[in-house]
């Protein structure tokens, strides 16, 4: 009601304005008040309907949709952040595991190496001992053989010299005297023939 009275008062003001402009013929249809009330009336109705429909039905939908999208994006960002954090933690865990297993592998390798070296050393010692023993045995044998060989040579020398003498002289000579001479000679030349 108040609005209507207001419109009317403005209308009458412009009506007065129109009287002023009326002198310069009807150049501007805008200043012809014939349809002013009609325009005001239809403007009020259309704009009113537009405003009510937009504000009550359409704009809330748009705003809720925008809000929903915003919150959805926010949620997605948060979820992505969380997953990134968890994946980072997992990466750290993984790296730790790798580090640990590397250390373990190193230790195992070290232990095995030590064991192997020990084994090798012990086996080597045993082998060395065996070799030494065998060498010793062989040396002993050689020594005995040496000694036996000297006696055998003496015997052979006595026998051959008695044979030679028999053929040369024709008579038998006592073996004991020959052996005495051979002994004497071997004692003299022992160093010469066998070394020490």
């Amino acid at each position, binding site marked *: 009601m108040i609005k209507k009275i207001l419109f009317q008062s*403005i209308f009458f003001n412009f009506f007065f304005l129109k009287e002023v402009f009326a002198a310069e013929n009807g150049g501007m*249809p805008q200043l012809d008040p014939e349809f002013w009330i*009609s*325009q005001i009336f239809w403007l009020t109705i*259309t704009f009113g309907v537009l405003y009510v429909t937009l*504000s009550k039905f359409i704009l809330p*939908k748009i705003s809720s949709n925008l809000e929903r999208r915003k919150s959805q994006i926010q949620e997605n960002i948060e979820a992505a952040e969380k997953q990134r954090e968890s994946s980072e933690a997992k990466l750290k865990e993984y790296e730790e595991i790798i580090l640990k297993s590397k250390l373990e592998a190193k230790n195992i390798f070290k232990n095995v190496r030590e064991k192997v070296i020990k084994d090798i050393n012990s086996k080597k010692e045993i082998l060395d001992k065996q070799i030494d023993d065998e060498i010793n045995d062989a040396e002993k044998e050689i020594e005995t053989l040496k000694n036996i060989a000297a006696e055998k040579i003496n015997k052979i020398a006595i026998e051959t010299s008695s044979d030679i003498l028999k053929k040369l002289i024709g008579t038998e000579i006592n073996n004991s005297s020959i052996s005495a001479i051979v002994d004497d000679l071997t004692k003299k030349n022992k160093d010469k023939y066998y070394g020490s």
Partner: protein
Amino acid sequence: MAANPMTQFEVYRIGPEIKIGSIDISFTNASLFMIVSSLAILLIFNLGSKKKSIIPSKIQLLAELSYSFVAKMISDTAGSKAKPYFAFIFSLFMFVLFCNMFGMIPYTFTVTSHIIVTFMLAAFIFIGVTIIGFLKHGFGYLKLFVPSGVPMVLLPLIVIIEIISYLSRPISLSVRLFANMMAGHTMMKVFGGFVISLGIVGGWLPLSFSVALTGLEILVAFLQAYVFAILTCIYLNDALNLHH
């Protein structure tokens, strides 16, 4: 000479004469284009808000971009206190924009080229803003007319100037839109008339002018709607947040 460039602004009755008492409220071409503009707005925004998909379709994107455009305009100029008036400013902007744009189609009628329409909108805004100002600040709203930091000697003069500038707001707001629309459409009509009168030989120059003017007028149609809405926001800002 062809048609008078002002005939395009003539309002005529469509259908029978409707009268309430002695007041004539007949349906006219102006009413028709008001309804067409409003229906176009409602259609576009209804389609744009029907489907609520996370990834918007083209029409939904249009509606949402318009929504955020106006929302940003209001929050930039009038702050967060102006949120309850968002729907009004949105409707106002869209109504003026669509009326301007429909006026750009040949043989249509430009609703906003009529001073009575723009003046009604401006007067409604002016009265509404003044009521809001007095409701929010009581008589403290009158401080609007007393800028701070003015020497006492100049104060009476300044207050008078402020009051005059405040009271002339609806006039400047309505005349700006009305004059822009009327001048633009008149000019286009005049150049169009030149094309006819100069014929095939000399008509090319005004024709190219007319084409350029059409582009300019579309820009002006948008710009004036924007200016209308943003000035409303500024007036609302004065009423909501007293700065002086």
